[in-house]
């Protein structure tokens, strides 16, 4: 059976913020660039980023990239690579200025500069007091960013393949990445994209949890493809739970609400964050706030008949300010929580929000993996950026507004690295004879199976297993059981059946293929979390409590290292954290307090 082959200089999988940013670099360098996306680019999940993008512009008050770097290292609980963090914080101003040139409608101060607001974990003068560092376009920062970058790509002649799903990475016998197989949803046809460079910008995988702020699109497709191609996944035990998901719905209430003065209260009407983070209070780092909220609920100070949420109070703010600075928040609250926040506080719970780990990359966007000798080297022809990648700048916990910054900086640097490699002579290498075999076999097995497991059943099993065993607080026995259980769920995923066998617009088939990606992320998460016997950042274990020897349960002697999980045999290796920045002194290890 002949499979059509489309040839491009570069193929980018994913058309969210990082994919679009990479594509600009490639197309504007005159390279023939294809972008594949399951949805129209401006409907990518980047659109949901409301809060802003961090950059030490210093427009509202004094600021410096070194302070931003310090906050990011501290936020990461020292698991972030300090070379990558320096790179990102330094580049922040440049990528925000790029956006200005693309026509991004940032909010302005009275004197015409970009308005900046405070955001959790961002401080001045190495952790002294909150600083205004987040640049925003009202509550539509991600939306405005996608539109500005999509238009720029249209101008640069980037070729978009919309409603296409990438199926598998294609590597040759020497391990070079030479393309991807993909399916056009409308026709059901499988096609090979043969490329000199492949960039993954496939976003996060938050749908593996039952309670998630992630849109339904976030099924970890890039991570699934990478895992099946023999490349490890890094630090997948670290998932950020956003403190303020609407209880019962998952829908996010942006951190900007607390930036504008919102206060968290328990059933005693107490502003409990004053006890947990005396300086930053409600603006402390997300994991600190999530843990404090969970502790309040666990100790019986949760709200409602089941004591299962706390309250986010903005009733003391002027209604006009709420409408002006936080326009979508009132409506979300009314639609999904049934309360008007001008009159009543919003019920909120910690909800899965962001994946800190992902495809291992260096700060230049090149994917890195251990070679035969165990040395971490670049995988030729392969790059990744954004939430699917792990540079690692977020380490064990991400600061708010650093995600949009991540996708801009590393989207740009992945694109630049690809341009550099292609201009240095990286040619089209021959496709292996079995280039599309894995993808075809996966599709054929799903189509041909009778009496298997439904996609809905398998997805529910993944979500339930992850939520119950690897949530915001983790317990040794539950993690151990979770590993056994997720491997059982994998058997369900290996036995998926779809009733609709149509070729054209078969969404059941696409959902089955997504589920095969989700299970790889779920296994990586559970197994990596069970293996890491300390508490760090967003990974908090009951059996690794705070002690004088290990404050906050963090054990730098044994665990200051990155996890690498390999799908084959569920094997785990570790690699060192890059503690040495590019030009400045190391941010020395210390206990993380706010």
């Amino acid at each position, binding site marked *: 059976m002949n499979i059509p082959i489309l040839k491009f200089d570069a193929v980018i999988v994913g058309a969210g913020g990082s994919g679009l940013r990479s594509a600009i670099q490639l197309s504007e360098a005159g390279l023939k660039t294809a972008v594949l996306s399951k949805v129209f680019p401006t409907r990518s999940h980047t659109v949901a980023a409301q809060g802003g993008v961090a950059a030490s512009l210093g427009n509202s008050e004094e600021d410096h990239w070194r302070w931003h770097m310090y906050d990011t290292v501290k936020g990461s609980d020292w698991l972030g690579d300090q070379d990558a963090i320096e790179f990102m914080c330094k580049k922040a101003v440049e990528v925000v200025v790029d956006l200005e040139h693309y026509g991004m409608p940032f909010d302005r101060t009275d004197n015409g500069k970009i308005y900046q607001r405070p955001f959790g974990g961002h401080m001045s003068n190495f952790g002294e007091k909150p600083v205004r560092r987040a640049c925003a376009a009202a509550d539509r920062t991600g939306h405005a960013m996608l539109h500005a970058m999509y238009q720029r790509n249209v101008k640069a002649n980037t070729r978009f393949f919309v409603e296409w799903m990438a199926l598998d990475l294609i590597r040759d016998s020497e391990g070079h990445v030479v393309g991807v197989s993909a399916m056009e949803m409308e026709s059901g046809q499988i096609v090979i994209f043969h490329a000199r460079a492949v960039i993954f910008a496939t976003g996060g995988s938050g749908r593996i949890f039952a309670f998630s702020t992630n849109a339904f699109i976030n099924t970890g497709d890039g991570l699934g493809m990478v895992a099946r191609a023999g490349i490890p996944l890094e630090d997948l035990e670290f998932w950020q739970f956003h403190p303020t998901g609407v209880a019962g719905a998952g*829908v996010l209430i942006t951190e900007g609400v607390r930036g504008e003065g919102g206060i968290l209260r328990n059933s005693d009407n107490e502003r409990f964050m004053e006890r947990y983070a005396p300086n930053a209070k409600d603006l402390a780092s997300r994991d600190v706030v999530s843990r404090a909220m969970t502790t309040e609920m666990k100790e019986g100070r949760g709200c409602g008949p089941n004591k299962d949420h706390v309250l986010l109070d903005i009733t003391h703010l002027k209604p006009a300010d709420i409408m002006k600075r936080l326009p979508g928040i009132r409506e979300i609250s009314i639609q999904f929580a049934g309360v008007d926040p001008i009159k009543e506080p919003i019920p909120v719970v910690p909800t899965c929000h962001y994946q800190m780990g992902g495809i291992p990359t260096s700060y230049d966007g090149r994917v890195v993996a251990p070679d035969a000798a165990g040395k971490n080297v670049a995988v030729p022809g392969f790059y990744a950026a954004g939430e699917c990648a792990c540079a690692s700048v977020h380490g064990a916990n991400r600061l708010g507004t650093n995600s949009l910054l991540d996708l801009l900086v590393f989207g740009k640097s992945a694109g630049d690295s690809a341009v550099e490699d292609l201009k240095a002579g990286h040619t089209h290498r021959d496709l292996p004879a079995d280039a599309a075999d894995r993808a075809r076999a996966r599709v054929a097995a799903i189509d041909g199976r009778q009496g298997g497991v439904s996609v809905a059943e398998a997805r529910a099993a993944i979500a339930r297993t992850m939520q119950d065993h690897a949530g915001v607080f983790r317990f040794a026995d539950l993690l151990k059981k979770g590993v056994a259980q997720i491997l059982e769920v994998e058997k369900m995923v290996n036995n998926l059946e779809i009733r609709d066998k149509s070729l054209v*617009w078969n*969404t059941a088939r696409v959902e089955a293929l997504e589920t095969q990606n989700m299970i790889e992320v779920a296994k990586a998460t559970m197994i990596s979390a069970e293996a890491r016997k300390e508490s760090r950042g967003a990974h908090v274990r009951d059996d690794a409590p705070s002690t004088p020897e290990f404050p906050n349960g963090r054990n730098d002697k044994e665990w200051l290292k990155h996890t690498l999980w390999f799908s084959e045999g569920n094997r785990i290796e570790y690699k060192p954290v890059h503690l040495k920045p590019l030009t400045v002194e190391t941010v020395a290890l210390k206990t993380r307090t706010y």
Partner: protein
Amino acid sequence: MERAAFERLRWRCTRRGMLEVDMVLGRFLKEAFGKLPESGQQAFIALADYDDMALWRLISAQDECEDARLAPIVAMLRGCK
């Protein structure tokens, strides 16, 4: 509506950038769409083509729908909780 067209619509309603829109459109498609007359279904399809943010602003009553053909569907979406 023929199968392929409905499946395409289902994909475009439940694979949005925003969870809010996934949830509201998904619920509507499941519970209300099939009961609409042809003209109502066409109006919904036109609305589903809107950007997430524009659609969310209509659903959440931050914006008013000025298209008389689409306004009744917007009103139904606002009630789809």
